[in-house]
């Protein structure tokens, strides 16, 4: 579904990404992690053609991003930015959700239906002014306006920045549900707990290169990779490593509880 082949990207003379190769299959939940300045946001912008590779090819749903317009790619790729205020431009929540739909659909009945469904799914009130909502609510509106387009691929650039735990979990549960229903999710995130909870695969970026591309369980216990990318594993994973081989690969609280219970019973 997504294929990066020998992708390099440079801003003027500065190399940001160097020979990036990977493929992402339909329905995967991939997290892209790395320290600030590693090239994560640049990589994300290559997914929908906001940036074109200096060399190499990016193929999204059989479309070459070098020749396809971003507005065309938007039918396949939903992109949620870190700052929802750059996305919101309408006076009501309903108009905001309808705004993106009007760009790709002409059937008014279908637009109305999708608006209603999306608002119900996210628990949003259509008449409210989006700019008077809390940061978390605004992020939800921005996400809702993307989900309404039913993209096959969802690209999220730090979707939980500035949100409290409850808002963060609400957003992540919606994203997870979409992923369960077949949407491919690619997420840049600094919160390793969230990555461990939701991502199946992790791509670690460092100095414009891929340092690791493996399952979440493998990456979270690879101390060398994490150190070179200035990352720390989730606390529960670190505890599991310290407890020894028997606990290896545990990333979540549920897994730890199950393990301890099974050990106690045996």
């Amino acid at each position, binding site marked *: 579904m997504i294929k990066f082949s020998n992708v390099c990207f440079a801003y003027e003379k500065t190399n940001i990404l160097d020979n990036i190769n990977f493929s992402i299959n339909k329905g995967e939940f991939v997290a892209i992690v790395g320290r600030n300045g590693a090239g994560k946001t640049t990589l994300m912008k290559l997914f929908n053609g906001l940036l074109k590779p200096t060399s190499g090819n990016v193929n999204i749903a059989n479309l070459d991003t070098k020749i396809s317009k971003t507005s065309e790619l*938007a039918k396949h790729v939903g992109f949620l930015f870190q700052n929802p*205020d750059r996305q919101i*431009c309408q006076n009501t929540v309903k108009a905001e959700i309808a705004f993106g739909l009007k760009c790709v659909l002409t059937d008014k009945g279908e637009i109305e239906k999708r608006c209603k469904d999306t608002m119900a799914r996210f628990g949003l009130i259509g008449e409210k002014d989006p700019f008077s909502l809390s940061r978390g609510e605004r992020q939800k509106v921005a996400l809702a306006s993307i989900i309404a387009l039913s993209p096959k691929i969802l690209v999220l650039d730090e979707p939980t920045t500035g949100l409290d735990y409850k808002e963060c979990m609400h957003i992540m549960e919606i994203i997870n549900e979409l992923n369960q229903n077949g949407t491919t999710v690619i997420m840049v995130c600094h919160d390793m707990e969230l990555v461990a909870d939701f991502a199946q695969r992790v791509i670690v970026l460092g100095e414009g290169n891929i340092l690791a591309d493996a399952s979440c369980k493998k990456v979270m216990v690879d101390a060398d990779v994490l150190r070179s990318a200035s990352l720390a594993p989730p606390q529960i994973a670190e505890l599991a490593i310290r407890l020894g081989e028997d606990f290896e690969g545990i990333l979540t609280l549920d897994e730890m509880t199950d393990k301890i219970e099974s050990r106690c019973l045996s």
Partner: protein
Amino acid sequence: MKGILEYSQGETIIHKLNPLTKMILAFLLCLSSFVSNNILMAVVIIALNIIIAYMANITKKALLLLSTLLKIGVVLFLFQIFFIRTGNIILSLPLNLYITDMGLEFSILLVLRLAGATMPLVLMITVTRMSDLTNVFVQKLHIPYKYTFAFITALRFIPIFENEMNGIIEAQTARGVEFDTKNPIKKIKLVLPLCVPLLISSVKRIEGGAISAELRGFNVRQKNSGYKKYYFNIFDYLVILLSVLMLFVSFVVA
């Protein structure tokens, strides 16, 4: 035009000039451009701007600015050329439209004047640190710090707003709004709804800036003084002399 008003770092002779000299140079070049009513003189002023940009190592930026100004100039030119009806007709068109020699000359002059007058001001901002400009306003021109701060902040916000607008356009393109269209009229139509997020983020930024200035004791400042002193050297006097000479020549030619 991206980043056109942002400070370009450098150690060139132009960068090292006293900020007041740079202001005088920009102001007199701008004035010369308005004073001259000769196409050749207007071209010379533009060429001088390019030479200054070359000396400051910002030729690419200056040429980009010039091309943008000329693009705006084309619109002005088309309006102006049909509005001036005096002079000898050199080309007759349908719908009682015609182009006269005076109209053509004045329209070309207008476009060149626009470029010649705008370029020095923009280039001056590009090669001068805002903090230096503020200090010079206060120390040498004795303008109250409050007004200087407001003026400089307004200037500083232009590239910030430009970046913000680019971010907003990116976000809207990513959701399917056709900003990547080649049709300029369609593009203008699409930009209008974006004024809302830009206005909101601008007000938020300004409010944030005002609060942080107050928290850092903005109103406590009593004296119009500064840590850095700005002296004039031989090059400064030379540049001022050349600027005055340029204005004088423009007067003479006019």
